């Protein structure tokens, strides 16, 4: 374990492994508390303060902090935000939302059903963050025009995104890690997870739509068809088809390259930033104008959070958690329930990427020594890590991005608003998904 002897802790003689171990936990809890207390602190400076305090006092060295930042996620976010910004500039989303409004006739139930279904399907084949970047602006625009409360609709869409993303190898970052470290193919995910996710999504949808109905959030506020027609027309603002065409061509190629990124040995983030640069050049749009639309605050939040979590990782907290989990995984059937539930809880509290990575190494070790087939545990980890992301606003990258987008439009998503909607859905979907996985192995054997 490398600790900085020239740090403040080093100068005070407090750079023992044990002290740093506990300090990283205290820092994490402190940062988390600041994020939760959003009325007092904004979550971005809270995360940045936590991250840079960890470097400042020496819990993590600057080099380790730099390595803790998941550059792939940051590059993916920047690249897709640029592409989506150019599509926004072209008026694509207003045209698309006008169409969605026309199809759903402004009915809130149809809107939420259409959007969550579409989001889940898109998320299975696209990165969740990309899907959210694509869908949330449309949804906010529509719901605001229909005098509905946009926040619950946005949260429901994000929940659907995290559920849908669980179905495939490329749908969610934890699955990419599991596929890569566990040696699973695209088809392995389709066979083992897609049917479970389909049923889980249906049940999840019933839960969040039911909750919204009980809260009276699905009552139409605009009922007059003529008024809805007027809103549809109003939604069709200025557009530029030539720019839309360029944006969609680049977006399409980006998605194809995402599918091929394993073959090309390129990370999704590299592809996204490369294609964003191509689009910026081709569209001749002023980069400064486009960069104004990039969610820099969301990126800063990730930066801080990655460093805080990096502190936990480098001080060995993750390793201990992983070994603790490995110690209680004595057989695959109970392991499905234990590992799946633990992954869901931990992924809901910390970002699911470093956790999945730590657990993946534990499973690789376990496969060498265990007397049983560990494959079910990999699927339990995937289900828990992906679905657990719905527990809190910081559980998954897509949640943070959606919160940033909503805040920019004037509809901030409070930590507890998300928890109120996300927790019941997470509990139900995790129980259903792990139950189905358990049943599958019970019926068809290991």
């Amino acid at each position, binding site marked *: 374990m490398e600790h900085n002897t020239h740090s403040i802790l080093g100068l005070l003689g407090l750079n023992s492994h044990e002290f740093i171990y506990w300090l990283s936990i205290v820092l994490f809890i402190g940062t988390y508390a600041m994020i939760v207390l959003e009325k007092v602190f904004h979550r971005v400076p809270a995360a940045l303060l936590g991250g840079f305090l960890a470097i400042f006092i020496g819990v993590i060295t600057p080099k380790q902090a730099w390595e803790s930042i998941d550059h792939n996620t940051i590059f993916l976010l920047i690249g897709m935000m640029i592409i989506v910004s150019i599509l926004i500039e072209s*008026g694509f989303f207003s*045209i*698309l939302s006008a*169409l969605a409004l026309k199809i759903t006739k402004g009915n809130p139930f149809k809107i939420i059903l259409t959007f969550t279904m579409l989001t889940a399907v898109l998320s299975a084949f696209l990165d969740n963050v990309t899907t959210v970047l694509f869908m949330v602006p449309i949804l906010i625009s529509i719901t605001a025009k229909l005098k509905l409360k946009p926040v619950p609709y946005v949260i429901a869409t994000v929940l659907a995104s995290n559920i849908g993303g669980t179905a495939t190898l490329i749908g969610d970052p934890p699955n990419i890690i599991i596929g890569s470290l566990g040696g699973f193919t695209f088809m392995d995910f389709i066979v083992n997870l897609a049917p479970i996710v389909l049923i889980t999504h249906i049940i999840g949808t019933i839960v969040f739509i039911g909750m919204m109905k009980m809260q009276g959030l699905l009552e139409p506020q605009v009922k007059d068809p003529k008024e809805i027609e007027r809103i549809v027309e109003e939604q*069709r*603002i*200025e*557009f*530029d*088809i*030539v*720019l*839309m*065409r360029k944006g*969609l061509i680049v977006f399409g190629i980006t998605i194809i390259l995402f599918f091929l990124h394993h073959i090309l040995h390129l990370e999704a983030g590299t592809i996204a930033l490369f294609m964003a640069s191509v689009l910026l050049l081709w569209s001749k749009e*002023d980069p*400064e*104008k486009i960069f104004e639309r990039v969610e820099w605050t969301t990126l800063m939040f990730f930066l801080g959070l990655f460093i805080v979590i990096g502190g936990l990782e480098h001080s060995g907290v993750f390793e201990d958690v992983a070994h603790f989990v490995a110690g209680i995984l004595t057989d695959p059937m109970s392991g499905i329930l234990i590992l799946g539930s633990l992954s869901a809880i931990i992924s809901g509290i910390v970002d699911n990427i470093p956790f999945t990575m730590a657990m993946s190494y534990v499973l690789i070790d376990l496969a060498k020594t265990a007397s049983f087939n560990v494959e079910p545990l990999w699927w339990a980890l995937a289900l828990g890590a992906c679905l657990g992301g719905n527990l809190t606003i910081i559980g998954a990258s897509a949640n943070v991005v959606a919160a940033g987008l909503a805040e920019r439009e004037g509809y901030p998503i409070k930590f507890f608003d998300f928890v109120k909607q996300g927790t019941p859905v997470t509990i139900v979907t995790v129980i259903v998904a792990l139950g189905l996985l358990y049943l599958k192995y019970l019926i068809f054997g290991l």
Partner: protein
Amino acid sequence: MEFKKNVFVQIEKFNWKNFSLAKDIAQKLGNGLYIVLVSFDKEEEEKIRKEVSKVCPNNKINSFSSFGEAKTFLEDFKPTLVMLSQEKINPLLHIFKHTDAEKFIKGLNNFNILLLWEEAEKAEKILINIDYETATEKYIQIAYSFTSKVAKEFSFIYSFYESFYEHMLMKTHADEEAKQLVAEMFKEHILEVKNLLKRALGGEDLPLLVIKGDPKKEVPYYSRTHGYDILIINHSIENKESYIENTENSIGIFLD
């Protein structure tokens, strides 16, 4: 300018609503209408000939099997106005597909062109765009000559791309200074456009509508939302394709 030779080009299907409007426009311009049919089968062509002869016995109809033949005919015939039907298409579909009219007019830069919106029935209110960079006296005169004969109401419009200039200037100047420079630029541009208009119209001082924003998006939007029947732009305008595709009513592309 005299609009002596007006041609109505139809591709694959005949739009009778547009034919009636084209006939009306040609009449107002004081001349007859030549009809050019492209890619019609014999049976359909005969039907059209019969129907057209019932309403306008003097209309001449030429039929061609391909774009190339029809374009060669037009190059030789040298019409003063070429009218076509512009398919009404959802913008989302438009991303993936060019209309037949858009394909046909590609490279036709020597004629005044009028794309009649598929559902267009009248040409009473016309908006003439004045582009700061490319609009010429000749263009304004042609557009004015056409409009004054055809429309009951018309306006000249100029869109100042404020945010573009602001971003450009903010790279080299302080924010406040850049904003001040843009404000001065705005005044200068309006003055220059007004002077151009005055010179083109022989000293006549006609009002100019001034809006702000990306012209290729804002002008077609203004035209659509303010009930204009036709928007006129000039051939040399930058992003001509965007103006054509972003317009959801009839659009004229006139010589400059």
